[in-house]
């Protein structure tokens, strides 16, 4: 698909920066506002077949190998990648990573005193199908404290990185779980000013009878910036 226009960010959707309670944003956010430029060819293009470069198909984080099941509550996250016209984005690369059930990442710089799970790495990568759909089997991540002076805990969340049809539709975001009381206290979740935009970061839980016995089901759609060119009429 080809993106050919991009409306500006609607108000209230972009996180407020620097972000209250998140000290790192005060040392990393540029002091000079960014220069608004009209998108040109470099911004409207992206690799057509990134899946050849970034191997896709790793959609089961819950099972490391036969007989090696991660510790935690098994869940399935399904959704679609859409553009601003609500059209599905086929063949987008979707990366998902998260902490284990104890809230620890399999990463050398996460040195927190919580157990690693030898059966959980916690990252996957897939390519959306022709209807923009993706799905991952995983476990519900644990909450974890952020090293900080303000006793800040991140609620359970899943990181998403999406590489779509244009550089300007590149998106990195996080997904939250419905009804988690920790959401209300999170500085990152609450950096999004618009309540409806925050709500769209929370997955919807499916009734168990619609899912099956092995796992709990969540649905989460992600909308990339940009509008596609009108398809040519045959």
């Amino acid at each position, binding site marked *: 698909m080809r993106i050919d226009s991009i409306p500006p960010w609607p108000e209230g959707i*972009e*996180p407020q920066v620097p972000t209250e309670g998140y000290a790192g*944003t005060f*040392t990393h956010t540029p002091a000079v506002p960014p*220069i608004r430029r009209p998108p040109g060819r470099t911004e409207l*293009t992206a690799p057509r077949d990134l899946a050849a470069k970034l191997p896709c198909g790793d959609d089961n984080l819950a099972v490391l190998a036969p007989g090696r099941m991660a510790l935690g509550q098994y869940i399935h996250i399904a959704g679609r990648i859409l553009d601003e016209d609500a059209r599905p984005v086929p063949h987008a690369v979707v990366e998902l990573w998260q902490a284990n059930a104890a809230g620890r990442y399999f*990463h050398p*710089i996460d040195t927190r005193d919580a157990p690693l799970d030898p059966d959980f790495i916690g990252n996957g990568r897939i390519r959306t199908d022709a209807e923009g759909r993706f799905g991952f089997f995983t476990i519900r991540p644990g909450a974890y404290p952020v090293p900080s002076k303000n006793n800040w805990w991140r609620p359970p969340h899943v990181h998403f*990185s999406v590489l779509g049809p244009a550089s300007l539709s590149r998106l990195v*975001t996080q997904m939250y779980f419905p009804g988690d009381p920790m959401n209300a206290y999170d500085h990152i979740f609450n950096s999004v000013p618009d309540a409806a935009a925050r709500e769209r970061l929370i997955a919807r839980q499916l009734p168990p009878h619609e899912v099956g016995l092995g796992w709990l089901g969540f649905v989460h759609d992600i909308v990339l910036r940009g509008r596609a060119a009108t398809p040519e009429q045959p």
Partner: protein
Amino acid sequence: MSRALPTSQHTIGPFFPRTYFGPTDHDLRRRTATAAPSPRGEAIRIAGRVTRAGGEVCVNALLEAWQADAGGHFDHPADPDVGAADPEFLGWGRAATDAGGRYHFLTLLPGGYAEGSHRRAPHVNLQIMASGLMRPVLTTLFFPAFTAENAADPVLAMVPEGRRGLLLAQAEGDSEGLRCFRFDIRLRGDPAEETPFFVE
């Protein structure tokens, strides 16, 4: 057509998995991990450091690069002469900063291209994501030798004159037969030193 509102951006956080990286992800010349690098152009190395306020280094920041091929084309339907694009060149790469805040890419020197009534100078777009950055930042690297092309580039012209030099990579000699360019990214600092960033 029904409208959908874009999903909010969030920080990539400190723990973007190292397990995601393949050995040639930082090499824009290769379409796959095992493909040979495209030979159609001058191979170059782009390297630098990512720093934040106070000149402190940023560790495990993610950089993604995107550029035209040596002939100034993209293998993408938005290119008016897509058939002329290099069939082996990818033009995209990603790298994470190490404990010293350093990154590097291998690529081909990009070509410029005509767009509307303007001509774009050779450039590389860089997107930087890091813990502490709630929104990714976008910048564009230009090459110092293209004085006339840079002077006519419409994007560089949008940058206040005194800050344009911050978008020029510095030639740093040769290493293993490749010309090297240094491009440091200062996320936050004195406006005279902070890297100019863009938003679309």
